[in-house]
């Protein structure tokens, strides 16, 4: 916590896309869901960049996505994995009250946000041991290896300001996941990272290399090929695939912002595409965002090869964290979701718990209606 003299009151007002982008670039990292480009990706929402000003100085920023209620000209204001403000400030009201006032003027009936605040971390070895233990069925049951008490006080501050945490089921809510899996990269060499992986990961990476799997970067034209494999994956894993146009829009918006904001990876074996992924990077944080693999030729381990290439590229670009995104809280070996954790745990990274998503109703009746509607969905 800073002991600098208490600055004056803050004001919130819209900022231009270049202003917002400059602020993002000045920060070590913010979530890619808080970049101006993301507003273009989520074109079913209306996006607005806003800034917090201390006098004339921009001290915080957010991307607000507005979604209209059916039939009424009122909006849910959503700040996914944001806003990017000083969460260590004991007086959070200084930041959040002008935010609420601004959003009220924009006819928001409620605000939803996901403070990018990490509360606890669990190392891979701990999780591995916990999965093997039948008594420990959720991450919360497992002693965290790192716990940030200051971050935990943010929850108390939010509650006292009238915000409510959105309950999650298994750490999964309708919004962004509360539990994520990250591979720390700061001050680690490629050898360190490899040595931290479990034997199976190392073996699979080696196996892919030996089998001659080649990982290359693709460009916009290759998205179609990516999408074919992605659709195959969706069918196999029973999820609804997004259309190719979504990925093209993402490509256009994000690469326009930074040339390597979004990178497409293609893993080929003897000319056949066996896996394809996208990686997003903002400053020091890299995310594995979408992944797909073919059902045939699984034994050449294209997925491991492509992950390893993304990790190395993230490292080369100066990233301190390689983010494999959401995991469920479950550690129950009988739960189908546990395989996903096991795959991620094999990288030797850590599970990271965020503060979760929080709501502030601005119009109680509309907000209640909206909450009920979301529950029924």
């Amino acid at each position, binding site marked *: 916590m800073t002991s600098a003299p208490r600055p004056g009151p803050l004001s919130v007002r819209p900022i231009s896309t270049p202003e917002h982008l400059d602020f993002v670039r000045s920060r070590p990292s913010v979530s890619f869901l808080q970049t101006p480009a993301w507003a273009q990706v989520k074109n079913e929402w209306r996006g607005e960049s806003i800034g917090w000003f201390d006098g004339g100085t921009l001290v915080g920023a957010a991307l607000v996505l507005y979604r209209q209620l059916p039939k009424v000209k009122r909006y849910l204001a959503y700040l996914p994995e944001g806003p990017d403000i000083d969460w260590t400030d004991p007086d959070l009201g200084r930041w959040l009250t002008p935010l609420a006032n601004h959003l009220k003027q924009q006819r928001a009936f409620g605000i939803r946000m996901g403070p990018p605040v990490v509360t606890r971390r669990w190392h891979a070895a*701990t999780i591995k041991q*916990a999965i093997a*233990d039948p*008594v*420990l069925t959720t991450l919360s*049951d*497992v*002693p*965290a*290896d790192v716990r940030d008490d200051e971050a935990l006080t943010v929850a108390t501050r939010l509650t006292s300001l009238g915000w409510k945490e959105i309950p999650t089921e298994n750490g999964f809510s309708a919004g962004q996941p509360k539990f994520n899996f990250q591979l720390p990269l700061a001050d680690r060499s490629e050898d360190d990272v490899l040595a931290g992986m479990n034997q199976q990961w190392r073996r699979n990476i080696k196996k892919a290399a030996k089998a001659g799997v080649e990982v290359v970067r693709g460009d916009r034209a290759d998205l179609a090929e990516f999408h074919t494999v992605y659709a195959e994956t969706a069918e196999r894993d029973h999820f609804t695939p997004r259309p190719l146009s979504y990925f093209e829009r993402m490509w256009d918006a994000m690469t326009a912002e930074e040339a390597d904001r979004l990178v497409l990876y293609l893993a080929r074996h003897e000319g056949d595409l066996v896996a394809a992924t996208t990686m997003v990077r903002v400053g020091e944080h890299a995310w594995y965002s979408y992944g797909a693999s073919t059902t045939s030729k699984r034994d050449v381990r294209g997925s491991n090869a492509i992950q390893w290439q993304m990790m190395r590229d993230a490292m080369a670009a100066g990233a301190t964290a390689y983010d494999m995104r959401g995991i469920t809280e479950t550690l129950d070996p009988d739960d189908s979701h546990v395989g996903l954790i096991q795959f991620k745990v094999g990288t030797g990274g850590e599970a990271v718990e965020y503060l979760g998503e929080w709501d502030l109703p601005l119009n109680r009746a509309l907000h209640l209606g909206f909450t009920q509607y979301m529950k029924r969905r």
Partner: protein
Amino acid sequence: MTFELDIDAERWRRGLRAVVESTPGIVPVIKGNGYGLGRDLLASEAKDLGLDVVAVGTYAEVPGALAAFGGDVMVLTPWRPFFTDVLHDERIIHTVGRVEDIAALAAGPDPTARVLIEGETSMARHGLDRHELAAAVAALGDLRVEGFAIHLPMAGGNLREAENWAAALETSQVETTTFYASHLTAAELTILRERRPQLDIRPRIGTALWLGDLGALAVRATVLDTHLVARGERVGYRQRPMPRDGSLLVISGGTSNGIGLEAPKASAGVVQRGKSLAKGGLEAAGFSLSPFTIDGKQRWFAEPPHMQASMVFLPASAQAPQVGDRVDVAVRFTTATFDAINLA
């Protein structure tokens, strides 16, 4: 010296040995008033039983335990920086339950002290949250971890919570395989041992050990005086009218012996209270049931107990004892103080 505890020594010690033999790793708890039997007596019994460690409640109880018992002495109350009676001795095992306390103890005059790390159970009394364990380990410095401890509620069905803590211990950064637990039944301990073979499970037991065979213990008070009283006659400090004709007995044993001292009832539900009202009689009239049994029944106090004697009303229909006779008393041992303890 007429409010006494008679112990059938042979039977009592047979009970102690049975508990010790059937409870591997037992740590006898010797605290407070020594469950009515006195801490010194219990410490010397623990020594005779050949046990290696005893648990005391507070630091004030440590010197006595060190003197009367040859082995290690663990303190159940977690160490606090403001305690002024903390002793430092190689035989003392401290309990720690707050990260800041661990750091303070490690920075104190005994940086290599032996400690137990306590987890906060559903008791919600002392101990660390499981997510604080890593920070606790980081704060240890040169302190030596002797084990991990949990204190469970007495409500029963503790196995699940105990096993959850055992699992938490095994996945935590705390490097110990010794697991101290209170309030697990023998069956629960057996199951826990089977499921957690890597752990050395050590139950901490007080009541079930020392008061495990109540038949070996008899509490007796002496009748000091008897007076015939008529219905409506006023007696005692408070000059209350007697409800019927009968005898007024003056019996040794008052508040200084723990008579009339009551902890809030563990299970005084609405039904229970309704029942006593429905029964009517003396309780409804404001009289309380005394712990003295005379002529086969527990009798009513004629007025609240005095410091060292009690006045008890006995109806004319009952057989009145003579001055000098001894009567049975049902006491709460954890609040009882006897004039004499007779081991025979």
